[in-house]
């Protein structure tokens, strides 16, 4: 696997897992608006994961489904930040959202400048959608920035984005859930 393909898979893993985690707020967010927002963000992130896996799969001679759902837990390259199950902690959820969107923006900007036109084009398309995630994170940051719980959550979670080597037990549980359909129905596709 080339460095570039590995990077694409890494981003796709982040988006897939975060999309899954965000969807855990569906139906139980503290405000109806946030129920809609987190569900919609989850849908976007999983869409980005799929498009990125498809790009990587063409290079690797496999499929997006196999990359997303047929690997073993320790083969995923997702950040520890996205692995955490944060429901029902809203302060930490918003802190993760703010940290993630900022870090994601930086790497998407780098991909937009890639020599690979296909990758650069996909990154630019993803960025159009991510702009709305960033606005949402910005809106919540403005609301919570003086709150002690929120500040503590930022401090706790900030270092986790770059931790990718060792997965936490919560990820194994999520993996069971994410891959259940694929493991129980032969040939199930995205």
């Amino acid at each position, binding site marked *: 696997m080339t460095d570039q393909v590995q990077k694409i898979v890494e981003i796709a893993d982040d988006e897939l897992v975060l999309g899954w985690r965000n969807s855990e707020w569906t139906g139980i967010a503290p405000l109806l608006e946030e129920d*809609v927002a987190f569900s919609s963000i989850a849908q*976007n992130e999983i869409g980005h994961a799929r*498009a990125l896996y498809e790009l990587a799969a063409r290079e690797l001679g496999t499929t997006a489904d196999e990359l997303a759902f047929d690997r073993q837990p320790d083969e995923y390259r997702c950040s520890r930040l996205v692995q955490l199950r944060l429901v029902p902690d809203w302060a930490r959820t918003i802190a993760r959202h703010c940290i993630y969107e900022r870090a994601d923006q930086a790497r998407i900007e780098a991909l937009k400048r890639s020599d690979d036109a296909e990758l650069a084009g996909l990154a630019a*398309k993803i960025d*159009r959608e991510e702009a*709305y995630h960033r606005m*949402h994170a910005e809106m919540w940051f403005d609301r919570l920035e003086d709150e002690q719980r929120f500040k503590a959550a930022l401090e706790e979670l900030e270092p986790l984005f770059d931790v990718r080597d060792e997965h936490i037990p919560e990820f194994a549980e999520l993996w069971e859930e994410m891959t259940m359909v694929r493991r129980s129905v032969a040939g199930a596709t995205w």
Partner: protein
Amino acid sequence: MAEDSKHPTGQPRRTHGQSPRVLTAGTASGALSEAQVWDALAEIPDPEIPVISLVDLGVIRSVDVSKDHVRVKFTPTFLGCPALEVMRDAMAARISALGADPQIEVVSDDSWSTDRITPEGREKLRAGGFAPPAPREIGGPKLVQLQSNAFRCPYCGSNDTALENIFGPTPCRSVRYCRSCRQPFEQFKTI
């Protein structure tokens, strides 16, 4: 690109010759033209906003008619939009109904923006109660714009509207509230 020609609805249409010529697919009923394919695709409604067609939405990049098949390239609106597969299948079915072999290709590049929605499409959205997207500005949309009152209510035309939620019932929509006619409405996001 010099080889691009425009369909009457404003969509780019690609032909492979230097001069206009009739391209045909091997159909039971005889020659099939690109214009016929565009007309057929213009009858397919968007699966989630059926007031607007796929041609109005600007997602169809090109139509190529050759001897053996009709190739359509199209771009997703939002990458996570579940309507993608529905659109693809609807186009394939419509082209099959014309007696041709469809080849539908999804192009996940950056060529689609809400600026590609046709003027007719924007009017259909407004009439259907969806405020059409604002034109995309350099640097993309900003929170401060969304929180301004620069968006018009599709029901009463007032600009006295407020952002209720950046997100809405589908990825492509935000929710706003009109203080003038006291009606919530859906605002197509600018991307």
